[in-house]
């Protein structure tokens, strides 16, 4: 660790501990009270088969999102493809809505006969999680600069440069995105359940919802946390998290020329395809009045939902930025292990995070004041999503040349001045992408929100979720349409800001 880095390290990691580690890990304190995995009623044949289902599903979705996301990101972030912002917006929208709703749309589109089982599950989860690979790869592509590619462009055609220079440099970021896709896919239960595809998290759900056995639910969740370490080990040799240097010049843009039309058709098909399930649900709106009624019923709630998600995103990005700074620049002992553990932290089932927050904050006095306000939702988003951001921001941090810091230090700049005046501007696009990522995940988040949202202050996604069962089809359709349109607003604003 660098000299004089003790107190900033302590401060940042202390805040991280209180805001993230404590609520996420608190439920695991139940493990101290006894019971071995065998005591949780494990049956290797049954549980093994379900774990195999989950792994197979997660691997398929990961490969599908990576296979689609990497070329899409190249096209959308680094080429002259027309209407790039529009297609990017369309592809990001599914991440803003609860995946269960996407699933309902897919079920209608493909018909139950085709969709029930593995196919519908994979299609829904691929549409839902593709934006993660897009955003991570996009953030990486923005850090690859003209200087890396210009020399190759002298003697290599653009396609060759894309393949041999740009793609290998973007790959670590794409793989990081794919890792998070894997983690989310392996822990997902709502979508597989909708398509009657049995997966391991169903066992955790059964402990919670059928037996109300918190202890056994935690014990049952443990193998899931171990399993998510597997892809980390696989991805490391492939380059996820590999360090690379970059300068601060703007990236090159590749001309598509003759293949513009074909690429446009491909991206348009995928962009529209990503919106189709939501549009299919929305097609149930038969009367404009239904739309107005739905808008009236969610108007202020939608505004509040976005504001809280925005604050959660800001807080998570700020904390992840500071944590990445400590881990990459100040390097306290155990930094690598700390980074390595972010993925299992993110894999902790949301319901456990929610219950950890309740246990931590629901107390008489000032803490109870926070718990009974919407600030608890902000804290929930921070606890749930900051572990997702830390590796992303840290990977980008590593790409900032150390010489910049040294030069600033020679000019007597303090550590904080370097942080705010040099690192922040250089990491602007990564922090923006990270903020957008948390924002969209927070808007669509249900399990934590449902457990901690103050009475009468449930976010839009929770309202949608609790209405979808047995509400008139037209009301569900109207809400779906409004959610999609509202989701497009912040995405469009961010994209416009980014262009600016």
């Amino acid at each position, binding site marked *: 660790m660098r000299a004089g880095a003790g107190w900033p390290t302590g401060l940042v990691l202390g805040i991280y501990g209180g805001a993230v580690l404590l609520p996420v890990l608190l439920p695991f304190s139940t493990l101290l009270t006894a019971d071995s995995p065998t005591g949780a*009623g494990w049956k290797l044949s049954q549980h093994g088969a379900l774990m195999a289902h989950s792994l197979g599903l997660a691997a398929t979705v990961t490969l599908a999102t990576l296979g689609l996301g990497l070329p899409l990101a190249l096209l959308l972030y680094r080429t002259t493809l027309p209407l790039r912002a529009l297609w990017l917006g369309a592809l990001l929208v599914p991440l803003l809505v609860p995946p*269960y709703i996407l699933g309902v749309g897919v079920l209608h589109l493909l018909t*139950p*006969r085709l969709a*029930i089982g593995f196919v519908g599950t994979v299609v829904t989860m691929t549409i839902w999680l593709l934006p993660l690979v897009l955003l991570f790869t996009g953030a990486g592509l923005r850090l690859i600069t003209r200087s890396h590619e210009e020399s190759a462009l002298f003697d290599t055609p653009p396609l060759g440069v894309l393949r041999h220079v740009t793609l290998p440099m973007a790959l670590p970021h794409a793989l990081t995105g794919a890792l998070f896709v894997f983690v989310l896919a392996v822990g997902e*239960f*709502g979508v597989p*359940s909708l398509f*009657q595809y049995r997966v391991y998290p169903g066992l955790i*759900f*059964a402990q*919670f*919802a*059928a*037996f*109300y056995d*918190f202890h056994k639910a935690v014990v049952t969740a443990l193998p899931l946390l171990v399993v998510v370490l597997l892809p980390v080990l696989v991805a490391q040799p492939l380059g996820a998290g590999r360090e690379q240097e970059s300068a601060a010049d703007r990236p090159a843009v590749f001309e598509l020329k003759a293949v513009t039309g074909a690429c446009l058709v491909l991206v348009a098909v995928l962009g529209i395809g990503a919106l189709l399930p939501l549009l299919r649900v929305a097609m149930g709106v038969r009367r404009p009045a239904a739309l107005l009624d739905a808008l009236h019923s969610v108007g*202020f709630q939608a*505004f*509040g939902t976005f*504001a*809280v998600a*925005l*604050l959660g995103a*800001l807080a998570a990005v700020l904390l992840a930025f500071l944590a990445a700074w400590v881990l990459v620049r100040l390097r306290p002992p155990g930094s690598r292990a700390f980074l390595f553990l972010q993925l299992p932290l993110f894999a902790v089932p949301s*319901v456990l995070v*929610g219950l950890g927050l*309740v246990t931590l904050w*629901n*107390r008489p006095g000032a803490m*109870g*004041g926070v718990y*009974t*306000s919407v600030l608890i939702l902000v804290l929930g988003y921070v606890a749930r999503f900051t572990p997702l951001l830390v590796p992303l921001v840290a990977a980008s941090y590593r790409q900032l040349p150390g010489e910049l810091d040294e030069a600033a230090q020679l000019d007597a700049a303090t550590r904080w001045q370097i942080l*705010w*005046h040099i690192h*922040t*501007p250089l990491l*602007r696009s990564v922090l923006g992408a990270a903020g957008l990522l948390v924002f969209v995940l927070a808007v669509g988040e*249900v*399990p934590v929100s*449902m*457990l901690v*949202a*103050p*009475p*009468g*202050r*449930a976010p839009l996604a929770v*309202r949608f*979720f*609790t*209405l*979808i*069962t*047995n*509400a*008139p*089809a037209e*009301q569900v359709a109207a809400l779906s349409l409004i959610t999609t349109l509202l989701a497009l607003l912040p995405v469009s604003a961010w994209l416009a800001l980014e262009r600016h």
Partner: protein
Amino acid sequence: VFCFSSRLFFLILALSGPVILGCNRAGSPGESASSDTVVVYTSADQPFAEPVLKAYREKTGVDVRMVFDTEETKTTGLVNRLQAEKNNPQADIFWSSDPGRGIAITRMGLTQSYVSPNAAAIPATFKDPQGLWSGFAARARVLIVNTELVPERETPQSLSALTDPKWRGKACIANPLFGTTSFHATALFAKWGDGRAERFFRDLKANGVQILDSNGAVKDQVSAGLIPWGVTDTDDANVAIQDGKPVRMVYPDQEEGGMGTPLMPNTVSLIKGAPHPEAGKQLADYLLSPEVEAMLAKSASMNLPLHPGVETPPHVKAIDKLRFFEVDYGQVAAQVQEVDRRLQSLLGL
């Protein structure tokens, strides 16, 4: 660039602040013990529960703060939340859509006694003598049958049709670990005894009965013509009928001497340590009133009133016109988890 980022940051904070305060404008449950506020957690489907609670708000002026859940979409919400909050309760009332969850929280020691005067006319079998839970507005377990796939004369009339080879691979039930199906399964164990009940579920599995994730999925698959018939609740079947789906609803085992079908009352409980106990009691009184039972009977939920003499639409059966099998709800609830574990192993769930 930094200046731009800072301005943007503070602009967002400035814009978000009032919204956050606005979201929280009514304050928190812990702030006041006044009877102007009541907090209700409910697992009843929001489309059915919200109008009832809003009507109470309009009638009394009490600020009713609602937290909804739905088992259908596989959240693990309110019972776990109530359990986690037990040292500093935030809810006054838990309105459960099924007796399983309602009595489960009583068994966890999360409720306090309140014998509502409005529950006096409700038959004793549907309420706890100490007032730890009180039932109202029941649903019944019914068969939902696709009219395009099953001619009327062949319509199954009994739960035992699930094990009839005639229907091999042509029927479905919801996962018996959850919700009303779980309670129904446990009630069968209580009524038939372990041996017969286990044989029934083993035969059901051997007969290729499909186990779907929820009663809603049973409704959807039968309505879509993917499976000829299944077992669900009256509200699901009625919603399908009202949506114009080609289905009919059958109350099973109604013949002379038949065992009848179990009723699944909603339950209401006053939470132990409720922040607004008096307001909670008043809301409990309202929920247990004939007025609410009439509202729920007329809604798409088509609940069966438990008070005698409540006026209902023609398609809603009065419970005295229905053959239902009587169970000791408290005793069945006590066995639910044991039976669930047995079924988990028996059916490979």
